[in-house]
């Protein structure tokens, strides 16, 4: 198993957390819903794996490049 950091591509605000730590996810699953400039943007699991850590909470402002979710794959 290795860790994969899922990062913010742009500056966003976390709108909703869709999954919990420890959950199994498959590639394409929506992990979080982000919001930027009145647009909702889903954060997608890039690979199959298990959610090791969710580093953000709803309403957090996240900078570009910041890790939001760590997946064990």
């Amino acid at each position: 198993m290795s860790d994969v950091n899922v990062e913010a591509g742009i500056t966003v605000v976390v709108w909703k957390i869709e999954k919990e730590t420890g959950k199994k996810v498959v590639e394409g699953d929506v992990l979080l819903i982000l919001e930027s400039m009145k647009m909702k943007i889903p954060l997608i699991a890039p690979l199959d794996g298990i959610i090791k850590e969710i580093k953000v909470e709803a309403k957090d402002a996240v900078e570009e490049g910041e890790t939001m979710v760590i997946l064990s794959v």
Partner: protein
Amino acid sequence: MFHKVVVANRGDAARRVIRTLRSMGIRSVAVYSKADIDTPHIEEADEAYFIGEAPASKSYLNQEALLEVIKQTGADGLHPVYGFLSENAEFATRVKDLGVGFIGPSPQWIHSMSNKNNSRQLMKENGMHVGLGSGILGTNAENIIKKGREIGLPVLVKPAEGGGGIGMFPVFEEEKLVKTVERARSQSLASFSSDKVYLEKYMPRPRHIEFQILADQNGEVRHFFERDCSLQRRHQKILEEAPAPLMKRSDMEELANSITKVLSKIGYDNIGTIEMLRGADGSFSFLEMNTRLQVEHAVTEEITGIDLVESQIRSAAGEALKDFLPKAIKPSGHAMEVRIYAEDPESFLPSPGKLNTFRPPIDKDIRVETGYAEGLMVTPYYDPLIAKVIAHSETREKTIEKLINALKEFDISGVKTNIPLLINCLYSEKFKSGNVDTDFVSKALNKKEKK
């Protein structure tokens, strides 16, 4: 007339109203959130008050904080401009309850027009052409299919209390109707806190043509011609122009006059815009009414020479239209506005960031409205509009040329913008021909991807 007005907005919207307040000798009060501490609209106002944290719900949508500013400053008017609380009947009522003038129509009109199903009904009863619709849908699948059949596919599923194209889907096959309605319902619930959705007849390749009106409190209504807002991406306008190209002037006049008649009959009492769709067959049908100043009001100001914000304020202060508007209003030349968004020009994904360079064109003949300046952050909290560029000249061709030059001159770095997309549209033969429908941008992009 008002003495002091709170401008409950930010950015280009706030600056636009502050400018007119100043020219009228009315004191202006700006408000700002934590994300907007360095923005130009604060400096331009006579007074400025902090109203809360960056998220709009804590600041520009925070009714308590705004009402508190009114009380603290002793303002006798509030201008909501567009977006935020501009179409919130509850807020308008609360402002009025303080004995303060809400610069917009009466709350009853904001309320009855904000539900699209209601406004369609009201306009239909008063003789305006409205396309077939279902009324608010229940959850019974059989009934939904029945309604779909009555209208005839394709239909468009729409949230009744929504906007901006969110939760709006066309349905071409009956098997997909119920599922799509449920999808629209859940999106509407998430975005607008309302599960009310309805069906209307889907119009392929429509043009979006809207009519600017202003009413006073004595039942007089005047129109200021039409705007064509067909160039859109993700169902949001990116370019607006007046007059509408390729339309017969007599047809436009006739429509505008019938609209003013309806609004006068029902007793509408301030600024508003009637949005219509024109089908490929040339028929017009009522889409919705916006009970506020529009983002694109500037193109109308350019062709009429009338300050719509000033006119709106005078009407809200109780003045009669006949006392401040010219007897005859004539459109002159052709005006066009483009909206510069901080976003990727191909994926349309937002692009917040710092404006390392922000140099608008310096041509005095070009009107630029922006709430930003070099060095400021474009944050993820508000909409992506960072500037509007407006050109006006004798002909549509010259206006397009002027606008292309202005956009090429506009120097922005640090965030991505849709300027390349706008320039491409302005150069395209299809756009130059004037025959643009609301699918133009998505079709042009699809073609490019296929290559």
